């Protein structure tokens, strides 16, 4: 990278910060600073004077950041990057990946584009991991609920484990519901009756 950009990453989760900073470093940007503490946003933007700020799209402090970058603007150019909708694909990719970028000083789209593309790629990977983790956690929870419901049926109806599960599955199919929904209903009922 011939021209090094100064990049500020606003993110509270340290693991995420590490991943994003690594990805940016790998892509050739070394002048990267991460900010975890929100209250310092104003001061850090002034002192570090980044060319670009990367932030989670859903971050509650985006309104503050917008105002800071607005105040630092000299030539009334776009504040947030995908704002510059000349590149619609990039804009949509940023939105879907949950990354938002703010240009603090005048920069051309060509210079920002690769930074944002790197960040987007990294955000997508992290998000994918996050949703897989969530899915795994949910599956574990569901398994526990189904086991409890099965136990309840086995005790109440004197069924074997397989028969109890078959009964739940059949009920679910008959009612057009998921097994976990039937299990939840059973567990709720069991809690009320106990």
């Amino acid at each position, binding site marked *: 990278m011939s021209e090094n950009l100064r990049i500020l990453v606003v993110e509270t989760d340290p693991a995420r910060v590490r991943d994003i900073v690594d990805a940016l470093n790998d892509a050739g940007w070394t002048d990267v600073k991460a900010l975890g503490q929100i209250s310092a946003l104003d001061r850090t933007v002034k002192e570090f004077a980044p060319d670009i700020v990367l932030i989670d799209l859903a971050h509650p402090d*985006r*309104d*503050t950041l917008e*105002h800071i970058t607005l105040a630092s603007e000299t030539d009334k150019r776009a*504040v*947030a990057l995908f704002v510059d*909708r000349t590149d619609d694909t990039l*804009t949509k990719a940023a*939105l879907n990946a949950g990354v938002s970028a703010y240009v603090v000083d005048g920069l051309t789209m060509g210079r920002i584009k690769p930074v944002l593309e790197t960040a987007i790629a990294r955000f997508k990977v992290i998000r994918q991991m996050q949703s897989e983790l969530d899915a795994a956690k949910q599956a574990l929870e569901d398994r526990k609920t189904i086991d409890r419901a099965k136990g309840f049926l086995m005790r109440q109806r004197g069924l074997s484990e397989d028969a109890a599960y078959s009964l739940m599955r059949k009920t679910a199919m008959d009612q057009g519901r998921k097994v976990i929904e039937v299990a939840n209903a059973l567990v709720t009922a069991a809690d009320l009756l106990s």
Partner: protein
Amino acid sequence: MTGIVLNCGYVPLVDCAPLVIAKELGFAAEEGLELNLIRQPSWSALRDMLALGHLDAAQMLSPMPVAMSMGIGGLPAQIDTLMVLSVNGTVFGASKALATTFGDIPFGDAKALLECIAAYEDDRPLRIGVPFHYAMHRLLLSYWTATVPALKIEEITVPPPRMADAVSEGHVDAFWVGEPWGSVAVQRGVAQLMMTGSDVWKFAPEKVLAARHDWIAENDDAVRRLMRAVYGAAKWLDARQNKPLAIEILGRSEHLNLSPELIDPAVTGHLTPGLGQPPVAVQRFLQFHKYAANFPWRSQAAWIAKQLGADADGIARAKQCFRSDLYRKHLNGIGADLPGASEKIEGSLKFETAVASTHGHMILAPDAFFDGSMFDFT
């Protein structure tokens, strides 16, 4: 029933009530709408989601569609205001320390308060917290303080739920915020409310229902249903007997997730300026429907554009994005009283005034400015 599904963005503040009520009490369902209310973490996020098509419609701060149509404020896009969701509803408060230096000034005296602020001396300008730059409270703050040319203030953007923290940690000396966050700061014992937004402009459009210009053109039927549903909810909200239920619904965890005591002041207009002080009754503190509150006056858009520094062309364009034409088209026939004109001279009404309308019983509320200015954009 297969209804039209609409994704509608909002920010959890008391004045998101018309959307919440439209959904919860079935006003949307009556119009064959399934309203998905999608909570947004910031105004910037809401704006991006709406502009880029992830939301069909959204609650917005009234200056946002005007700013976007002017091409300023982040994302330029053609966003129109379908109707006004609420009028007034903001408060100006000071930290305990600052309020003490002001001495004894009556609640709601905008002129006396401004004199105190102008007389305040320190080695740095007074820092005033506002939630968003393109917001009515920020425009009112600028309008109000600009009447004293020598007065310098520093505007600091703070997300509303953190305003009380910002005051208690000394990041801001004063603030201008929508409810319930002013009352929250009072309850925390860190701030004193000094006046309401209506003390600077008696009838300021605060939140609006907005959608993309192109989407509106292509979805006439959905727009009609949405406007009718929200109109019904707004009307319901302004009936005194409905307020307790409205407060209860808004407080629920999926909406504001706050105790009813914090929502009550805004909905009933009985504000407690400081801990241990008796409540003050504020007329039209938060108006959802009466006095043609929902009508998107083109002159309101013009006033906003003027404050944002628009030239004559910009003002003309701003007027076009307040869609009083759609209001007339879609709400005619469900009992909505429609005014004879779509513009008024902002600031000209000192008292409640009867005006020409289709049903002949429209009364407009006072809309005067604290300094007596009038704005004629015709």
